């Protein structure tokens, strides 16, 4: 059966609520379906105590979810926009992430914070950001960013069962994407990337909506005889460098693409690790695609002008291929 991204998240939440009485949903408007309709109908099915509306208090509701997780619940908190996670930063960084460690392993925080990010449709500078890089800097957190509906289904269920705090980042542009769910497929392991398309000439590393752009870029490159391999990272913290290394050992060229700005981005970390761990495999400098260093503008023409897409990836790959390839022994 086909599901949109939103519908498939709802199904995953529904199944987890049914499977485990410790799972509770909370957030602004979640009992009313949530700002994007992800939780529609779940309060009717499970009651407004398990699918619970909260006041507009991002700091307190993140603390609340964390405290409840310390005491046996498995809360799934919806932070409506990742831009608002700034208000929950103290809790996420200083409390949620560190509790297991600071307590010497006595307690855990089995919490999923679902949030929604990225630019689309004129949401403008305060509702469009890609802030994931801030979180991969924090030991104790796990950061997941699914690229497609079926992926989101499995990754959300795995996140809820993980036992450590997960920031689960959904891209608003993917919400209407439809996909068929392979019933009964095993749940993905958190921390493992996947190869979304195989190829031999260049590795394109991406996550979240940028995986779709990378797949479009690879299709376009195929038409001019360039075989691109697309890696969907799925998990940004931790990074699956094993899958990255396997691919680069084959292609010897790599472009990392994300919607976030390049400066201090996830791609910078991956590039640094490729540089130190896979230097000998590279036939060209690591290419990076990201948003130019500016806030996301409002006007459609400006938003389009800023956002990197498949064209930017194709361009980056062609530049790499233009770089003189050294003869390999």
């Amino acid at each position, binding site marked *: 059966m086909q599901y949109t991204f939103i519908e498939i998240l709802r199904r995953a939440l529904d199944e987890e609520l049914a499977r485990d009485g410790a799972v509770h949903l909370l957030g602004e408007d979640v009992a009313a379906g949530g700002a994007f309709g992800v939780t529609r109908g779940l309060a009717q099915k499970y009651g407004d105590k398990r699918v619970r509306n909260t006041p507009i208090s991002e700091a307190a509701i993140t603390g609340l979810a964390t*405290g409840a997780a310390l005491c046996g619940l498995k809360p799934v908190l919806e932070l409506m926009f990742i831009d608002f996670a700034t208000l929950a930063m103290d809790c996420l960084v200083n*409390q949620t992430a560190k509790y297991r460690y600071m307590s010497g392993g*006595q307690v855990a925080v089995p919490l999923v914070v679902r949030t929604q990010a990225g630019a689309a449709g004129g949401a403008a500078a305060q509702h469009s950001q890609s802030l994931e890089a801030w979180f991969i800097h924090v030991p104790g957190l*796990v950061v997941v960013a699914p690229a497609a509906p079926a992926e989101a289904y499995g990754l959300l269920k795995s996140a809820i069962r993980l036992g450590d705090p997960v920031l689960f980042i959904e891209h608003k542009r993917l919400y209407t994407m439809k996909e068929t769910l392979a019933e009964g497929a095993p749940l993905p392991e958190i921390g493992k990337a996947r190869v979304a398309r195989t190829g031999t000439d260049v590795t394109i590393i991406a996550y979240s909506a940028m995986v779709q752009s990378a797949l479009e870029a690879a299709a376009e490159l195929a038409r001019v005889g360039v075989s691109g391999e697309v890696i969907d990272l799925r998990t940004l913290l931790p990074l699956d460098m094993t899958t990255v290394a396997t691919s680069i050992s084959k292609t010897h060229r790599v472009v990392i693409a994300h919607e976030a700005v390049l400066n201090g981005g996830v791609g910078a970390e991956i590039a640094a690790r490729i540089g130190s761990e896979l230097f000998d495999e590279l036939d060209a400098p690591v290419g990076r695609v990201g948003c130019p260093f500016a806030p996301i503008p409002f006007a459609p023409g400006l938003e389009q002008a800023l956002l990197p897409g498949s064209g930017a990836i194709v361009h980056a790959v062609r530049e790499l291929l233009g770089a003189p390839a050294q003869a390999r022994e």
Partner: protein
Amino acid sequence: MAEPTLDEWKRMYYALVRIRQFEAQVQRLAGAGEIPGFPHLSTGQEAVAVGVCAHLSRDDVLFTSHRGHGHVLAKGSDLERTFAEILGRDSGLCRGRGGSMHLVDSGAGVLGATGVVGGNLALAAGAAWAAQAQGKNTISVVFFGDGTTGAGVFHETLNLSALWRLPLLFVCENNGYAEFTSREEHSNVQHVSSFAVPYAIATKTIDGNDLPTVYAAAHEAIAALRRGAGPYLLECMTYRMAGHYVGDAQPYRSKEELAAIKEKCPIERLKIRLVAEGVTQQELDEIGERARQEVLQGVERARAAARPDPATVLDHVYRSPSLHSIP
């Protein structure tokens, strides 16, 4: 409320002195360079810890602040392991990962202290929510200072806990200072209990240095909480007899203020009351000496304990080591 027996008062007197002596050792060893970081003492505020925790069971949970040694001891954490944690020993409550400002003892229902002012409030509300959701009759207690009321999350948590009728006891230790700055310079609101009013949270301001007063007020508040009456904010007026942190020279306090400290001391005040009830000074001295000996022995054992193995420094970041693939 059944009035505690004389023996029970004596036990609480013991608990007060035990915390005082414990922190005297923290002060001594911090001064000697044996304790890393910057411990904060609750000297002078012990009656709040003892009077509130007397009504808690092990299953009730407690969150404390940066000034939490007394709360943790009063809740029932092992003295030696608490001190070992403050020393950074492997036998410490948190195996040396937390220290003075991050004491956690899940077995005793101590779910944490916070080094970030206000960071404990919403967590305590979450613990209360969990108890409510699980149909338990337990409560959650959070200790915080008067300066904490300047934090937005304090107000958010008041609203949320009132709205959800959470079994959450807010205990404000109003010691008149936030670090080196007086309450008057922090807020136009004289009493922290005023903040409870618009949210329709039951509240009371009490003399936090008088153990019988704290005991009775906490009894009333906690009984209401266990009946499901929703949150309660207990403001305990108290006085920090020590500096903000160990080593604070306190230039912001006048000589007159410092001279009046002894009258405020909760131990002296309970002593006067017990003597009036016929307990001899000699017996009180003996109780105090027993507490001191227990502390000294616990502290010596903690000092002798092994330090954590540096090879374990990466333990406990994640549940599964497979998630810990970061160099």
